[in-house]
């Protein structure tokens, strides 16, 4: 799960990583103006108006602006709310007292898939696109893989100091940056984050090293050991569609896509393959949905209901290869779901293969449900689902 900036800063703060004084999270221009006034009354006439989305490049997109007055804060808010930053629409703004910036650096720790460990990236070039720095001036970017012992025991301070020194941070920043880096790694471990990025890490004009930005990604598999994990999923930061919300609530693996052929299958690889064969048949998938292994009739029904609740869906492909799952039970599950759902006005193309496939197909053929079309192979099922979707779209 990706956190937005203010959440990342909250996470940093509770783990001892220095951050600016907390700003105010706002959802309307009125709130932004009031926040700027409140901050000005506290002695900080300058505020930063910052879009809160789960995407980088906010500054470049015009999503981060300095305001010298509450009126200016309001004007900025009016241009930033609703801004589309690479597909992410801004619904929430953070109003923060402006920090006096002397210098900007870059610091991140991420889980490196290739190295199967943790990587610290540090550069004196902060506040800019680190990919660009890496391209044009790779010597300016220190990339340090952590050792296995550090994975378990934490990053020793001497190592942290060595990293920030090699990144050429100035003497005035070194000690604090080293301390911060140690705490940042501890935070990453404690919170099960796979990424903690600070760009920029700043030296303030009064000599403090703090995280001016915070980009954090949390490992979904670790939710079981974080009771507050769900609390990060705040309503309204990014408006999600009804299906994505329902899938999350039901713990169903679902990804919304752009097309009109609804897809359900058992197994992530098989479902990815289903998206591919639908495209190869000339159609476009409306979604990815994995019902998982050994799914019950209820899960099948719930998943079908979810996909069919999407008005964009013109036809559905149900692609099941029964391993442990028995196809005759799947067939019964599909028919049972159709009973529950009533008239769905769309065709379901059902491909059953594997354990008891013959029996499953026979059950569907004999039931002869007007909306259920059995298909013998994945390729045929995809062709048929695409054709049915096109027919409905044209009608």
């Amino acid at each position, binding site marked *: 799960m990706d956190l937005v900036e203010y959440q990342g800063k909250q996470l940093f703060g509770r783990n001892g990583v220095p951050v600016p004084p907390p700003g105010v999270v706002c959802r309307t221009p009125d709130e932004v103006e009031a926040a700027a006034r409140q901050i000005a009354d506290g002695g900080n006439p300058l505020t930063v108006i910052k879009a809160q989305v789960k995407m980088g490049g906010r500054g470049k997109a015009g999503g981060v602006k300095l305001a010298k007055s509450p009126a200016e804060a309001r004007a900025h808010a009016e241009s930033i709310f609703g801004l589309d930053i690479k597909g992410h629409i801004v619904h929430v703004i953070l109003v923060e007292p402006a920090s006096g910036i002397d210098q900007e650096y870059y610091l991140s720790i991420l889980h490196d898939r290739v190295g199967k460990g943790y990587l610290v990236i540090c550069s004196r070039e902060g506040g800019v696109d680190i990919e660009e720095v890496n391209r044009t001036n790779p010597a300016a970017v220190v990339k340090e893989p952590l050792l296995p012992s550090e994975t378990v025991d934490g990053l020793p301070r001497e190592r942290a100091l060595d990293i920030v020194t090699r990144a050429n941070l100035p003497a005035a920043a070194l000690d604090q940056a080293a301390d911060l880096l140690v705490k940042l790694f501890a935070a990453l471990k404690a919170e099960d984050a796979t990424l903690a990025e600070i760009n920029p890490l700043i030296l303030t004009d009064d000599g403090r090293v703090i995280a001016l930005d915070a980009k954090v990604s949390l490992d979904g598999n670790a939710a079981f*050991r974080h009771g507050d994990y769900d609390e990060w999923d705040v309503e309204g930061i990014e408006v999600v569609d009804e299906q994505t919300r329902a899938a999350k609530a039901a713990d169903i693996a679902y990804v919304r896509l752009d097309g009109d052929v609804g897809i359900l299958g058992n197994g992530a*690889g098989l479902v*990815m393959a289903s998206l591919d064969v639908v495209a190869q048949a000339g159609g476009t998938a409306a979604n990815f949905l994995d019902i998982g292994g050994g799914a019950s009739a209820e899960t099948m029904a719930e998943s079908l209901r979810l996909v069919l609740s999407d008005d964009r869906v013109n036809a559905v492909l149900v692609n099941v290869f029964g391993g442990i799952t028995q196809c005759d039970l799947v067939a019964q599950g599909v028919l049972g779901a159709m009973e529950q759902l009533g008239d769905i006005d769309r065709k379901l193309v059902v491909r059953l293969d594997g354990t008891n496939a013959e029996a499953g197909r026979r059950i569907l053929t004999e039931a002869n449900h007007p909306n259920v079309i059995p298909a013998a192979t994945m390729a045929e099922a995809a062709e048929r689902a695409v054709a049915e979707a096109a027919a409905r779209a044209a009608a």
Partner: protein
Amino acid sequence: MAIFIDENTRVVVQGIGAQGTFHAKRNQDYGTNIVAGTHPKKGGTIWEPLGVKVHASVREAVEELGANTSMVMVPAPFTKDAILEAYEAGIQTIVAITEGVPVHDMTEVYDTVVRRGGVRLIGPNCPGLISPGKSNVGIIPADITKPGKVGLVSRSGTLTYQIMHELAQAGIGISTCVGIGGDPVIGTQFLDVIKAFAADPETEAIAFVGEIGGSEEQLAGQWISENIPDLPVVGYIAGFEAPPGKQMGHAGAIVKEDGPGGESAAEKKEILGAMGIPVAINPSEAAQLMIKRLS
């Protein structure tokens, strides 16, 4: 001969709940030698319906019964400890089926168990492995397999079954099928399995099934093109239609938007193609390519 598991495999099952019991019994019925189950509080009892002992620890199963392989079926919060316990008890091959293990846990496991070498960890989030006619450790349905000469290695579960099924229908059997799992940090990579297949006299062709995310397919491809250019190898990648930045079910099936590149299906296909390895874009094509290479 097959790889990793064969008629000498002696399995201890960690996790004797409903899932563990169901799959262990299937493995046993197939002929796999399940020697024991483990449960910290049920040591000394009999594990029905398998009729083998329950030991309180893996170490006991190793010492008393010569267990050399472990199947880990405990829930995700306990998987790291279960793998480490098996490792410390001297298990040679650890097959971790469980899905949902945190990345930090697996990173620690990787450092402890895999980097040191000498022990084969497969998974987690995998269906296990089967050497048809010899041994089945995991949840792969044996009845869709048939013994033969193709080595199959895959990140997927049911998609692998699909391909095995299509190959079996064409009369093509498997020496060993290894499910390496769908997570970003796994104990055994494509390359590990492919090297073992290359050294196995009973394996005469290799099929690998990859997904979006990571770059292990290309790493394997590099080794294949340099070391076994004459062995028939066919690849297949799922996820051409996956949008960047979205996790497609498997924790490892994600193309990072600001990532190093090479993680999308199209890029993998292109890179592997340039190495001389054909990559199918759907399961039927994968089976057809293999049938053609073998004929």
